[in-house]
């Protein structure tokens, strides 16, 4: 996870006019998070979470904006953002389906769950569907080993899964997406 090579300094950053950090996010960073910590750098994880939550990924421009508001080096923001798996460095589907592949889940039927997702969505692990609805990934232990197999769909945890139940969930979430839920900006 730690070894994402940096582009050279000549990397072109895609920019848009409207800043990614909204006024509300700036307020949260300045007023909610900053007083909590001794350094501004410590606000980095919370700030990245805000962006990740709002846009579903963390654009380079947003990292620059965070560096500015926290008065830290852009390279430091990049360093941290690339280390943690929860931060997406490129756009993904509206909903991420994360199937646990660790010890209890694999030996209680995880492979069939992943297989069901693959067939239903027509994609492999690590890919996004063409309609941008779903991204399928496998994660390590989700802390639901007693109710294995488990998967996170978006931010909702589903436990005691069967392939049939997994397909139902995908259908339900797909409808929710059509109805405008799970929209990022």
């Amino acid at each position, binding site marked *: 996870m730690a070894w994402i090579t940096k582009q050279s300094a000549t990397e072109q950053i895609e920019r848009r006019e409207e800043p990614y950090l909204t006024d509300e996010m700036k307020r949260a960073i300045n007023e909610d998070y900053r007083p909590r*910590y001794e350094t501004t750098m410590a606000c980095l*994880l919370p700030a990245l979470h805000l962006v990740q939550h709002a846009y579903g990924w963390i654009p380079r421009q947003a990292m620059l904006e965070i560096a500015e508001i926290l008065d830290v080096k852009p390279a430091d923001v990049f360093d941290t953002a690339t280390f943690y798996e929860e931060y997406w460095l490129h756009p993904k589907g509206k909903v991420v389906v994360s199937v646990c592949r*660790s010890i209890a889940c694999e030996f209680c039927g995880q492979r069939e769950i992943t297989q069901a997702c693959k067939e239903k969505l027509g994609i492999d692990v690590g890919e996004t569907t063409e309609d941008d609805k779903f991204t399928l990934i496998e994660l390590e*232990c989700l*802390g639901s*080993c007693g109710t294995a197999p488990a998967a996170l769909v978006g931010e909702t945890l589903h436990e005691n899964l069967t392939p049939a139940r997994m397909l139902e969930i995908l259908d339900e979430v797909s409808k929710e997406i059509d109805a405008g839920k799970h929209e990022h900006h």
Partner: protein
Amino acid sequence: MPKKTYSDSLERHWLLKNIPTPPFGKISDRRIVSYDDYVKNKGYESLRKAISMTPADVINEVKTSMLRGRGGAGFPTGLKWTFLPPVKDAEGNDVKDDEYAGREAPVTERYLAINADESEPGTFKDRLLMDFDPHLVLEGIAICCYACKLSKAYIFIRGEYHHQANVLENALKEAYAKGIFGPKGLVNSDSNTGGPRFQVDCYVHRGAGAYICGEETGLLEALEGKRGWPRIKPPFPALKGLFGKPTIINNVETLAHLPDIITHGSSFFMEQGVESAIGGPPSYGTKLMGVSGHVERPGVFECELGIPLRELVEKHCGGIRGGKRFKGAIAGGVSMGILGTDQYDAEMDFDIGRKYNVLGLGTACPTVFDEDTDMVAVARNISRFFKHESCGQCTPCREGSGWLYQLLTRIESGDARTKDLDMALEVATSMGSMPGTTICGLADGNNWAVRTIMNKFPDEFEARVRPTYVPVKMSVGAGAR
């Protein structure tokens, strides 16, 4: 009186007093315990008792109880607390306990980091406390902060625990409003003096998906906004931790034990659990044990330390699934290694490492395998986890974990040679902080997991490999002499 050997004498649950769990409650009755419900069941009385004692007395009580850390290493909690340097005032003089109580804000910042990262595969015990009884955890935090004179507490919770983070945030709001934390905190405005006392703040800090942030110094780095690279020790966090200040790091379950220890005294705690059978430090108290894998009714149970694995599985979990036979069990999180088929009776206490050739008790969350399980696949799964989660700082861990995963994948697929088994063992044995080649214990986990599985189930590995082909020395062509 402390017990020499295990006998089931638990008449009620302690950690799970508000979370219905068999045999003393029904899982379907579980609800999130609000502040009001918590207080109705004598909640926060222990904190009130604690702040009527001096901080040193609170620490002594915890020290006497021999409470050992529930996060994996089993380090005595009270002892860890005494490593903190004395509190200094603005002029640099030590602040004595009796002066300390009346003081306004602390003079030097000192921190508590609560380890709620729970990412060890097979472990799901802290989650239960945070799911349903957040105030028990908060009360433990408040007691610890009072005893150790800590000014701020950060609950470092893994990113995937969205729901639990919300439950904690809500509970914190209640606790702030009801005078537990913050400038108007209970710890702060004592009813006798009415004046401001020492103020404790508590925040939830979400991680972002990295197992290594469960390692205590990796956690501190993550809190500081950096990549979660464990630090070289010493200096130990008690002297130089978060932001370079004295810091205590404790597991969620460890802190949740504090209220009962303060309310009922250390002797109550020592009546549960067992003395060491091999002359080591004792294993007192109850422990959350989360059983997963091939059992009829997996789940988290509160048991006294020392319960044999067989009893845990047969009595609490309804036995092995489908009436099958026991083959092995991960001792307590994959880092600890495996208990073999003949170790079904292993006692779940802190002696388990020395008695049964595993790394230790770990999180006491065994993953159980039935007779049909492919142990080569188990080893491959675990080695993939460590390859994925190595932070990459130390070469033996970064490279070794990749090698092990490749070797085990090859063995599983049937393409490997006998010499690959030797190489896997050699790579595994050489990595870790105990062989002294790495900074943190992640590599030790990898080492023990792979090595114990290969050593306790050698037949399965040998059956998968073909004999090593020894090439005959040839002298032909350009290289001929």
